[in-house]
């Protein structure tokens, strides 16, 4: 049942948002769409923002971010990620999304090529297009658990290639780039003088014993790596809008000017909240990981029972489902699941036009709701008999 006569968007953010909007008009939808954790921001983080409001610490922050927060981010990056970073190498942004937009504008000239693993978070497309850059896609494969293959990267390097984007763990595939591959990619970057953008927004959520490696910590990489991270995913803080970029000081200065033109500073109370998140015990992150891990098991089991192929997520909080067994595309299925089962999933085409054989399911509902969602999905998803 494909309702409506208005032409529907076929890919990217437009497709995702059209589904979100449709979901908003339907009753009792279980949303497994957006990457917006259902879990509330931990109370001690909220309390820090409220305290900052009470003590009048709500004035406009410096464009680069509150000094205390930049310092705490630098300390975190040294301690946890092995990056030799000082506060002046850090710029706080209005969410990770703004971080990627700003850094792309400060990095790419018209005609510059940037290698982007595919499927991908398509907001990068818009940022690259706006800078006049040329996106060169590097495929990742289900058979390789969506790891990024260094050979696939190297064979696409041209004289115009300026940068390589790495997103690990990956949105939407929930794959990771394995440490061995990251080391090889670092060699390639040095050899071909490439800048690496390392989007590590899902770094805290890895499973099955996998770890996280920040490529900026690999010898020789510090000056050519731009590390992007934020608070939305790690601390369930999507509504606060705080992210950050860590890079060389000259690059940070250029981004700061861009930031001043785009939106001045990130919200002050959000920055105080982010400071509390970094400087308090990290048990909340451990708890989140345990919760997502449990949900991941429930969903993988449910999908297996329905005979749906999926790769085991090594990171993030998504499951990337292959729709081949259903005989339907991701987009067809997403509309059917929404309209018939009242479950919102994102079609693979939301992450690149050639990926409509997939669906992205986010694990951001309580376990019983996930179970309920799977039960509702079953009649639509069950492979056709005969």
């Amino acid at each position, binding site marked *: 049942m494909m309702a409506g006569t208005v032409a529907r968007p076929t890919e990217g953010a437009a497709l995702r948002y059209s589904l979100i909007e449709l979901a908003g008009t339907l009753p009792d939808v279980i949303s497994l769409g957006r990457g917006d954790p259902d879990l509330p921001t931990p109370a001690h983080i909220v309390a820090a923002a409220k305290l900052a409001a009470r003590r009048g610490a709500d004035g406009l*922050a410096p464009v680069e971010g509150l000094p205390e927060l930049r310092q705490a981010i630098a300390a975190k990056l040294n301690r946890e990620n092995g990056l030799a970073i000082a506060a002046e190498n850090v710029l706080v942004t209005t969410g990770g999304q703004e971080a990627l937009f700003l850094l792309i*504008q*400060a990095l790419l*000239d018209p005609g510059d090529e940037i290698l982007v693993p595919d499927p991908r978070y398509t907001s990068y497309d818009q940022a690259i297009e706006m800078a006049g850059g040329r996106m060169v896609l590097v495929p990742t494969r289900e058979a390789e658990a969506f790891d990024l293959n260094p050979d696939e990267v190297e064979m696409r390097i041209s004289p115009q290639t300026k940068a390589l984007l790495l997103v690990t763990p990956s949105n939407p595939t929930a794959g990771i780039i394995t440490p061995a591959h990251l080391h090889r990619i670092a060699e390639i970057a040095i050899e071909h003088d490439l800048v690496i953008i390392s989007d590590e927004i899902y770094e805290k959520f890895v499973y099955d014993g996998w770890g996280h490696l920040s490529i900026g910590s690999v010898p020789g990489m510090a000056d*050519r790596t731009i590390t992007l991270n934020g608070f939305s995913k790690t601390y369930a803080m999507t509504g606060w809008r705080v992210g950050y970029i860590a890079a*060389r000081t000259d690059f940070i200065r250029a981004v700061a000017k861009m930031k*001043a033109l785009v939106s*001045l500073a990130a919200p002050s109370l959000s920055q105080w909240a982010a400071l509390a998140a970094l400087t308090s015990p990290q048990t909340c992150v451990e708890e989140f990981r345990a919760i997502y891990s449990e949900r991941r098991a429930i969903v993988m089991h449910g999908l297996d029972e329905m005979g749906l192929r999926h790769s085991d997520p090594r990171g993030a909080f998504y499951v990337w489902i292959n729709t081949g067994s259903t005989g339907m595309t991701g987009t067809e299925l997403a509309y059917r699941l929404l309209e018939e089962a009242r479950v919102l999933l994102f079609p693979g085409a939301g992450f690149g036009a050639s990926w409509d054989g997939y669906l992205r399911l986010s694990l951001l509902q309580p376990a019983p709701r996930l179970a309920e969602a799977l039960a509702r999905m079953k009649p639509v998803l069950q492979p056709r008999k005969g």
Partner: protein
Amino acid sequence: MIAHRAAPWSLAPRPSLHDLADDLANVVDLTRSYLSDAPPAHIPAAASTALDNGATHYVDRSGLLPLREAICAQYARERALTLTSNQVLVTSGAQEALFVALRALVKLGDEVIIPDPGSPPLLDIIQLAGGVPVAVPIAATEFRMQPEHLAHLLSARTRFVILLSPHNATGIAIDSTDLLQITELAERHRLTVILDEALYAGLYDGSRQDSLAHLAEYAGHWLLISGLSKLHRLSGWRIGWIIGDEQLLGPIRDLKQALSICSAAASQWAAVAALTGPQDWLTAQRADFSQRRDVVCRALDAMGFKAVQPDAAFFLFVDVRATRLSSAQFAEFALREARVLVTPGVEFGAAGEGYVRLSLTESVERLSEAMARLRAALERQR
């Protein structure tokens, strides 16, 4: 590693008057463009309550519906402008509003008419978007942009006219008749008027609430940008908005979403409280500003300086040509000899030369002190 567009920004900044001021004791800083006073308690309290109620998630990319409705209600009440919530896009401050509007709409080679003096970041944004800024010197017409100004500058490539009202250097607000004529002209020539009203809540005469009802006839030819950073003392909360025709807003909304997904949830609830809660504190604040303005203007008169008569808080644009100093030289003199930091008019454009901007964010006492020091320094020069 750095793109050409950003390369000049990557250099270590040259020392400015602000750096010099940092090294001096007891400087009165009259360059501030934000109030440091805390907003009334009901506003942060609303944010706290919202946080307790779980406002920690993404919200609608257009902005929280109750906020968009509060914005609509305010324009209906104060400006006779009827809007629907689909004609409002909430942004992370008026700065983001300006950025997304211009970046989404201005195409390569489009000419954008802006006042001179104007706003330097505006020039940068227009150029980033590939547009060509066309400056209208407005000093000779008492710093008022006139419809005749525009008629002379129109070319086949003119697409936008930006009006700063009240103006962020002079405090001059465009009057209704001029705005109507400019909008008519915009419609005839298929232009879009972008009306930046970030300082609107500072208009001195509380009764002077210009109707925008006539704009309804020109939907599609204007955008209005405003926010809560200035007079509402919410600069750190980052709330602004764009209102305009739904179709015009479409690509701007897409860019805003690509740029920052949505604006901070708790800030938006604070903004709801700011717009729907008590408004009398704004009236009292305007009275404070007019007292500060009067004190400073009297002191300036006594020194032989004249300020442009502002329509709104919170700046004074002061003619210092009698000193025969450039605006930058005057600012340096004021800092070195009187420990008073002011903004050279030339920073707002070539037509601002000969003027300095004084910000009235300090108390009457501090402002009087600054004026006394300035007067003493000038007398020492004689």
